[in-house]
């Protein structure tokens, strides 16, 4: 039996809490927390979770690692299996997305350490987007032309400390709020605020030191 046919067989899954039905077509309407309950009842439902987060986590891993597509896919496979194994550890006081991002982040960092490979900065596709969003979050840069040069931005991010780079990616690219970043990186909210401010300052300092003309 193929997975697709398996899915079709499971298309009418009873959601005990709300008496709604999970189908291939409408699974987007149920919350992550409800989906977790359904996965614990039937492992086939894990497919929906993978689908929901595959793209988001692929982007996030690429942003923090700069790995190529194949490596990211290998990493993601491990991450999703880890998520599945630890579903019962999901802390309902958190957003599910924060929990899954945390696992992805920790696994990616641990993978870098094991391979002794230094995470590189964002991929070329993302440069402009990062630069635009970071620039709009930094007052001093608001005053200059925000048409940023791709090469310049990637150079600046390469020179930034890992901790600062991470918070900038989560804040300006993943568009997470302070509480979510706190839950993902497992640091107090106040520390996240400080890190973001320092990251902005470091970004500005590098720009000024290198006399980068935006």
């Amino acid at each position, binding site marked *: 039996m193929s*997975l*697709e046919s398996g899915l079709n067989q499971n298309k009418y899954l009873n959601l005990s809490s709300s008496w709604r039905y999970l189908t291939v077509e409408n699974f987007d309407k149920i919350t992550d927390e409800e989906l977790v309950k359904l*996965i*614990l009842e039937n*492992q*086939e439902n*894990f*497919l929906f979770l*993978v*689908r929901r987060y*595959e793209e988001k986590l692929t982007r996030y891993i690429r942003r923090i690692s700069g790995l190529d597509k194949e490596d990211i*896919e290998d990493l*993601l*496979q491990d991450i*999703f*299996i880890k998520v*599945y*194994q*630890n*579903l*019962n*550890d999901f*802390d309902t*006081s958190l957003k599910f997305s924060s929990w899954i991002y945390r696992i992805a982040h920790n696994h990616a960092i641990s993978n870098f350490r094991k391979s002794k490979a230094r995470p590189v900065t964002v991929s070329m596709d993302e440069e402009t987007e990062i630069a635009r969003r970071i620039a709009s979050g930094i007052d001093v840069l608001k005053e200059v032309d925000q048409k940023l040069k791709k090469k310049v931005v990637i150079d600046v991010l390469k020179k930034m400390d890992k901790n600062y780079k991470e918070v900038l990616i989560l804040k300006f690219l993943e568009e997470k709020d302070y509480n979510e970043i*706190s839950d993902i990186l*497992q*640091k*107090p*909210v*106040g*520390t996240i605020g400080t890190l973001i401010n320092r990251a902005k300052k470091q970004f500005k300092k590098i720009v000024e030191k290198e006399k980068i003309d935006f």
Partner: protein
Amino acid sequence: MSDLSKNVLEEIKEHHITPKPKWEFLVRDYVIWAMFGILVLIGSIAFSALIFMITNHDWDIYRNLGQSFWQFLLLSLPYFWIVLVIAFSIFAWYDLKKTRAGYRYTFTKIGLANIGLSILLGTAFFYSGIGMKIENIFADNMPFYRVIHPGRGITVWENPDKGLLVGEVTGFIDDEGFNLRDLKNQDWIVSALNSVWPREVKSNIGMIVRIIGKQTGKDTFQAIEVRPWMVNCDRNGAPAVQPCRSLDRERKPFIPFPLIPMPAK
């Protein structure tokens, strides 16, 4: 269906991977909290011993010893217990950070909560006499402890020429004084007229006392202040919160290296 979702599900099925049971995570959480409890408990006991050492120290005799207050303070601080309290506070802080929501709190918040708990429990332990018991156990059984804290400085009080005397009350001379036998079994006549002389000392033969005053003769001493050896020490029904420590225990010779035989006197 994407390759990734297909691969993930195939991997799960092929290797019969299942979610870890909830109890495993609960056990992990309970172990972390139990560890925190144990670490705070040990820290609190150390803190109670620290209070005991501080409250039973004579902080005002530095002049008799010809030292400045700060010099005396540096020489008298109970470093062993201070280090223990700090070490266990750090261990407990680290453990608390490992709890589910531990990362949400700053170093200061967790540190203050942890220290506050240790102070609260430690004070309760001190008043229940645990501080003294623990200090005694270490003093009696741990040679290294006596290297760091050689008694409560009883030898300091064996300085009648500097106005410091310690010994056991052997009898009373009306309301004017008492007889005392010091650590070297020398008998003294102590005049305590116009001195600070606590009521519990006045009625307790056998009580160990320390005296601040002045040597007036070969075996006579003028007291300015008479203090029981142990603060709040329970003897003969005197108001107390902790049992007395015998002079024998204080007399116990300190042998820093027990394996090396002491030279015969």
